[in-house]
């Protein structure tokens, strides 16, 4: 049933800190590795050593430049994957019921035994978060590592999405954004976390933390004690006396 649940018990999702992401692509390949071995069909690569390679990735890191008039341009790395929207348009458009949002934790998944690979969900998603696997003909998307976060075969500390576990800079945070007291919710509150394209009404669960203001250093110049060697020696003698 591709109707969205009226309410989910939890809103599991990611908080991605754009002030910390260095754009290393660690999350990209960790995701590719885990999800090739796990949930559903492997993430395939076509013409992998050829002239026109292509492949399925559930998470990709973009780089943007922003420049305000009269200021230095700044670079922002932005990892992009499924935002597990509360009002996920990708779910409601699905003709087969393959796309669904879990009522217990809000994760948006594709039931691969139902998917016909029509691609309509990808069209409905504003974020480019769904990719049709060319080899399997099935729609792939971030599962929030649903087969990690509850996995009893993993040590408890590893029960987080692969991208979060691997992120070297700690720019990715995982938790329940439906619980205002969770660490991730507090992070969002403290750092002004924002939604992508809120006007489209998708109500994303994942949040982005904006880059902190850049190039603000404005410390007043130091006071001069001596401008030439002789004066300096005088200052030095006094300063040594105080040691």
């Amino acid at each position, binding site marked *: 049933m591709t109707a969205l649940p009226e309410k989910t018990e939890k809103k599991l999702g990611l908080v991605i800190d754009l002030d910390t992401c260095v754009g290393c692509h660690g999350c990209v390949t960790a995701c590719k590795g885990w999800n090739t071995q796990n949930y559903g069909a492997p993430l395939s690569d076509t013409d992998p050593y*050829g002239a026109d390679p292509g492949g399925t990735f559930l998470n990709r890191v973009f780089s943007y430049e922003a420049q305000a008039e009269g200021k230095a341009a700044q670079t922002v790395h932005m990892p992009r994957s499924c935002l597990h929207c509360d009002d996920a348009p990708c779910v409601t458009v699905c003709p087969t019921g393959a796309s669904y949002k879990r009522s217990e934790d809000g994760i948006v998944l594709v039931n691969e035994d139902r998917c016909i690979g029509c691609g309509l969900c990808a069209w409905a998603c504003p974020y480019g978060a769904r990719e049709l696997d060319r080899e399997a003909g099935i729609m792939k998307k971030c599962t929030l590592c649903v087969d990690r976060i509850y996995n009893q075969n993993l040590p408890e500390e590893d029960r987080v999405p692969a991208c979060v576990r691997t992120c*070297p800079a700690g720019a990715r945070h995982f938790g329940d954004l439906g619980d205002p007291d969770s660490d991730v919710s507090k992070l969002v509150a403290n750092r002004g976390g924002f939604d992508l394209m809120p006007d489209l009404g998708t109500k994303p669960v994942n949040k982005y933390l904006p880059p902190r203001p850049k190039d603000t250093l404005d410390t007043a110049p130091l006071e001069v004690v001596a401008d030439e060697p002789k004066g300096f020696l005088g200052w030095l003698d006094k300063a040594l006396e105080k040691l």
Partner: protein
Amino acid sequence: MNKPEHLQIDTSPPVSDEVRKTTCYMCACRCGINVHMKDGQVAYIEGNRDHPVNRGVLCGKGSAGIMQHYAPSRLRAPLKRVGPRGSGEFEEISWDEALEIAAGWLAPLRETDPKRMAFFTGRDQSQSFTSWFAQAYGTPNYAAHGGFCSVNMAAAGIYTMGGAFWEFGQPDWDRTKLFMLFGVAEDHDSNPIKIGLGKLKERGARVIGVNPIRSGYNAIADDWVGITPGTDGLFILALVHELLRAGKVDLGYLSRYTNAGFVVNEEPNSPENGLFIRGENGKPQVICRETGKLSDYDTPGVMPDLAANYRHAGTTHRPVFQLLADRYLNDKYAPEAVADQTGIAAERIKSIAAELARVAFEEEIVLDQPWTDWKGQKHDKMIGRPVSFHAMRGISAHSNGFQTCRALHLLQILLGSVEVPGGFRFKPPYPKPPEAHPKPHAGVTPGQPLDGPHLGYPMGPEHLLLENDGTAKRIDKAFTWENPMSAHGLMHMVISNAHAGDPYKIDTLFMYMANMAWNSSMNSSEVMRMLTDTDEKGDYVIPHIIYSDAYSSEMVAYADLILPDTTYLERHDCISLLDRPICEADGAADAIRWPVVEPDRDVRGFQTVLIQLGSKLGLPGFVTDDGAPKFKDYADYLVNHERRPGVGPLAGWRGKDGEGRGRGEPNPAQIDKYIENGGFWVDHIPTEASFYKPWNKAYQEWAVARGIFDAEAPYVFNLYVEPMRKFQLAAEGHGDIQPPDHLRARIAETMDPLPIWYPPFEDANVDADAFPIHALTQRPMHMYHSWGSQNAWLRQITGKNFLYLPTDLWTEHGFEDGDYAVVTSAHGSITVPVAHHAALNPKTVWTWNAIGKRKGTWALDKAAPEATEAFLLNHLIHELQPPKGDGLRWANSDPVTGQAAWFDLRVKIAKSVPKPAESQPVHPSITSPVGKGPDVVARKIR
């Protein structure tokens, strides 16, 4: 029908059959990895949470390691060249035949003229072993890739303070409040820097990035200083100028822990001029603040008087600190004076200096941790200056790189921020001053081992490796007047010098893991020509080339004999304390690799092959007294080899009982213990030894106990590097060992014992107006040298590169997306795709390094974007400076260390009309020894 939102899915699937823990080799960072095995195959790789380097995290390369391991580019068996060099035509041979051929070339050379065998290893992580082989063989011609990487950084650090960045030390990430980062090659300390930056970000600490390019780490820097390439030293010395003028230097620290108080002989024309005044025991003298008398610098209770001077025989001799203040208070280092050249506004420089001072001195950290210094004095606290720095290739790969790196260490030391809480901290076996390192050796006796280690730290002209006629003993001319302190050798000069027969011809070039026929050489096209050039008899100028690589790289085609290496998951390795270990500031650590899977091809780990070759050649150390092989393979060597009694490649679980840490006799179960422990060993430094390591008694004792030193070796930092002055004195005509006349002026200028800045040589060598633009390369975080392109995942991320142009250049030339530019240096020209990058120094263009590939290599399609659109900047860079009309070959290197000056490059740019069909130059295709990879990869082990 179940409501899908209640669909039962298996959220607890089995993850793997088994986890095998080893060490990553997707770059030089050496993180711990958990290799998940399914059905005997590698299924998934993640970071090892217990590992001291990466604490569980893993970068884009590491997580893609599985695709490297299964790459179709892996060589399959030993190869013997059957076509002409460069064609890629080989036949597969057996290992017996391969070793027979190699020994057939090497054995006679050893008996007659061992120096005609040159053994250079590239991104080798087993240098303590490969150098041992070369030493046993007896050739002076050995080095790894440091000379074209970051030797300026390493050597400047060792000479100044007994260690530099990365393997030598790290910022105190947990406490530092202001972090300044200069040009960094991302694979140098990859994950630790990211983890550290994450910690700073979590605390909201300030990060200042100094880099012409605002990408990667600089993207998240709070303040970006888009400096003009090659001017970092000038910028740093302007900061020093500001700090000195304001008296914002840590005088107590300088007095106690540096040679600031050492009295310098200022008697003009004396052969001792500029050297320290020494006591009868040879110890440098300071002027005691209390008595005003000269005193040994290390006399307990003596505080040197930095403000005093010493008059003797009509000459006034001053302490180092006064010479230093004299120099940097000069207006030529004023922010206003350097603003234009550095591209940084004077106000900004002043503001940064003020912020450094504010954080260092007003946000001082005090730890209630008693400690005892080397003179026996007890201290009840540890005082920290929470500013820290990190730098790497960006500042070192210039012809002024050594002095620039020195300047940075000077700045750190003036702020009192080295080896203190919140500052910069050494990692064992560092700190280790230059005196404690070996001296270079090149004493050759046919049939015998070399007279000592190849590489080291010269303390004066007496340690140069020169023949009696003044020519170089080494093929790369390391440790000559051209680059006296070339501590890592000059791998980038080997092929060029061997081809030119300067200083002499060689017979066999033996290389490992160095893609010299492509991205690891300056002037790649010309290097290919040199490798294939023939003499008047039609023989190759370099008669024999042996090469070991795991993959079908460009260099493979240029060798006569290929010894195929394994992947990193199929081999034994050792990240040794004897070499470049993985220690952290809080502990000594080393690690192993072990075969988590056995090779499915006829390949052998290169180190094992060296063991076999060494045995076959009967090299001392490789065979027993009766000539039988001493070691079965590399693993056997790792366990049983002893460099000094009780000290071997691996420090953990030594001794019969496995209790030995650092010292102890070989333990047959040692490797098993490593495997059991996750592939590494760590031994934590006692808390009271955590800081002030060079002067901390507890640390010195711990280091001796662990076999890091054999005796305590406290020392002070060298603001003033006396050995450099010795070379200058020679240039001034003092002493018996004299430089050739054409080098006197350069040595006198560049071997200054106090940091200086001079423009990169290229600025003078070419017409800077005709070539107004600086061109740089940097390595993407997800690619390591040439390795990434054979990785099906990584090459999708970066399968082509663009030359990034700043806004002004972009608009001035009317470029649009999809355009190509002709980029011309004094040396050559390339035609390449361009893109716009606004966050860039306005005089700088750049591109990602080593994305371009030769057609037919790495098991890629000949039409792969790597071989059609992507490109190398290397074609624009010559290993020599342009001819000066003196008939001499001047290396395009730092004059102190010989480090390749990659980043000196200047170019001009024009729009390419019409667009070329492919990036230029195009090199003919090589026959692939491994064919092409499969059409689809979807590898799920069920």
